[in-house]
């Protein structure tokens, strides 16, 4: 055997010089066939989930989001304070501090639930306010994204599938909407709705959120779907180029079945990814508006309005700004990382 074939020091390759050619025998057909056996079958979805599980940042985001959800759901059940409850004499406490009256109660042997994040200037437990703030922010983010998804998907898939003149007109409308100044519209709508809607919604749940939130949803529904619509239209145009759509037509598959079986399943990953990335963007908009004072109506908190309120005593009570700001960052960052992870997991081109 050739000397050059000798095993390299750390190579795992078999040292061929140890063997004689005579020791080998030809593979039988049976054995050759076994070589052809393919790997474990996976569906595209399973495969993507496997890739997602291998992404540590995405998994960390999922854990963080799950913990946050647990806190948001269960904290109000455990903690004896409400987000609007004013406890007398307990204003302006630092985290874990007790007021003089509460200290007396403790001395008497009564148990008092600690103020984890302290209290605000009115004596409301700050932890529960941050929890409710996160509830509102996440809720707004998720609902706004679903709204955007529903409108965008319907519009985008009609425009993309029909193509031609219909597509042209529908996309010009999108262009026009795209060019409208969204913040200005939200502010204008908030002012107008505040005047007109307040008496109408009195006493309903909507009143708790306030007319500003309704304005926010309307603007999301009117304006923000265009990005999603464009994206889905683009995706459908690309998928339509694939020969399997033509093959379906050649077989005689109906249009409805073609959309259902061939086009939408191939858009699914883009839809999931964009929705995951839409939520943090909506949360951010909500927080931003609340910070400007255009968010939820008091006393209902949102992370943005909490941060806004905290500006007054920023020097003495910096934690009041830090807690909601940190919560916004954590939620937005975790959702963004999860969205990125989903994109990497679902996009086979990037992962190969």
């Amino acid at each position, binding site marked *: 055997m050739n000397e050059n074939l000798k095993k390299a020091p750390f190579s795992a390759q078999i040292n061929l010089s140890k063997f004689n050619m005579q020791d080998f025998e030809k593979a039988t057909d049976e054995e050759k066939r076994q070589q052809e056996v393919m790997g474990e079958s996976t569906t595209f979805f399973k495969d993507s989930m496997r890739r997602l599980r291998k992404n540590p940042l995405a998994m960390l985001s999922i854990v963080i989001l799950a913990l946050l959800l647990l806190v948001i759901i269960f904290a109000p059940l455990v903690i004896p304070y409400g987000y609007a409850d004013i406890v007398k004499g307990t204003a302006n406490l630092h985290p874990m501090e007790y007021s003089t009256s509460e200290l007396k109660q403790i001395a008497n042997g009564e148990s008092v639930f600690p103020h984890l994040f302290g209290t605000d200037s009115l004596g409301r437990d700050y932890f529960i306010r941050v929890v409710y703030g996160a509830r509102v922010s996440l809720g707004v983010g998720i609902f706004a994204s679903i709204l955007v998804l529903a409108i965008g998907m319907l519009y985008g898939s009609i425009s993309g599938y029909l193509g031609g003149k219909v597509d042209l007109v529908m996309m010009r409308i999108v262009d026009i909407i795209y060019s409208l100044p969204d913040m200005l519209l939200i502010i204008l709508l908030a002012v107008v709705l505040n005047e007109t809607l307040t008496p109408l919604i009195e006493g309903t749940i909507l009143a708790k959120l306030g007319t500003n939130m309704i304005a926010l949803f309307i603007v999301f529904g009117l304006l923000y779907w265009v990005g999603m619509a464009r994206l889905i239209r683009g995706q459908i145009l690309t998928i339509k180029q694939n020969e*399997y759509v033509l093959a379906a037509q050649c077989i005689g598959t109906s249009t409805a079945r073609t959309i259902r079986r061939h086009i939408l399943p191939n858009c699914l990953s883009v839809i999931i990814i964009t929705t995951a990335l839409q939520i943090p963007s909506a949360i951010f908009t909500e927080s931003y508006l609340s910070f400007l004072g255009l968010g939820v109506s008091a006393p209902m908190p949102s992370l943005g309005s909490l941060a806004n309120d905290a500006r007054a005593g920023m020097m003495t009570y910096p934690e009041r700004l830090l807690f909601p700001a940190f919560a916004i960052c954590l939620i937005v960052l975790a959702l963004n990382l999860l969205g990125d992870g989903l994109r990497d997991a679902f996009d086979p081109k990037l992962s190969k």
Partner: protein
Amino acid sequence: MSSEYILEVEHLKQYFPVKNGFRTVPLKAVDDISFSIKPGETLGLVGESGCGKTTVGRTLLRLYQPTSGRIVFDGDVLFDSENKIDVKMQPYRKQMQMVFQDPYSSLNPRMTVEDIIGEPLDVHKLYSSKGERHDKIIELMETVGLNAEHATRYAHEFSGGQRQRIGIARALAVDPKFIVCDEPVSALDVSIQAQVVNMFEDLQKQRGLSYLFIAHDLLVVQHISDRIAVMYLGHMMEIAESDELMDNPIHPYTQSLLSAVPIPDPETARKSQRIILEGDVPSPLKMPSGCPFRTRCRYATEQCAREMPPFTDRGNGHMVACWNK
């Protein structure tokens, strides 16, 4: 109904509206093409990439709406622009099928092999029970040489050659009479090409299929075709029996194509003079006047620039479009 031809195409035109600057102009992808295919026959269609071969195949299967012309399948007129006949294709989808060029984009990545091959069965309701559907799919997979155990796998798990077999099984599922094979082997490894071409031949013998077999490679087409048609820039240049076309090409374009084919016998190779094609294929948007080939033809005369040569029979059905006698 039966007739002498399984498929007759007359003066077929397919113009695509394309944007050229601010104006929309017609791109003449297929311009006035006529041919016919007998039952059980294979017509090879060759030509450089972009000359409109795929468009011919797709238009005659009515995947594109023809601009004008006449398509007759098995005695039934499917489309006739003069008499305003434009039939519903659904019943004919069972009789005419297509095998696509790209084995990757022609299979839906979200479907299993079973569902891909089963879709034509579902669409045309070709089974009475789940079991019958399954049996038919397994039988089709075995016909095209796929391991039936892999029915629940996704297309991306297969190699190019296996994927093309899945595409063939899908076309065969409706038990068609006629199949357009659009460069079915040009995306495959050379070693696999022969296997797949042989399979097409076997299937033809077993099932009495007729093919329009598209390729840009004359050698592949020569092997499988009874007759060969040569296209250039959307026009038909020459049609003849395979051997006749290879031995006695009349059209200058066919001659140049043949001289580009490697000749296995060195003696013959030395004797034959290579005709090197000069210049590029003109854009289909800037079609030359008269004969489309004249910008690259060494026999081109003034007449060629003035008038389009007619497609005439030079004896025994050897059709040529050229002024040069």
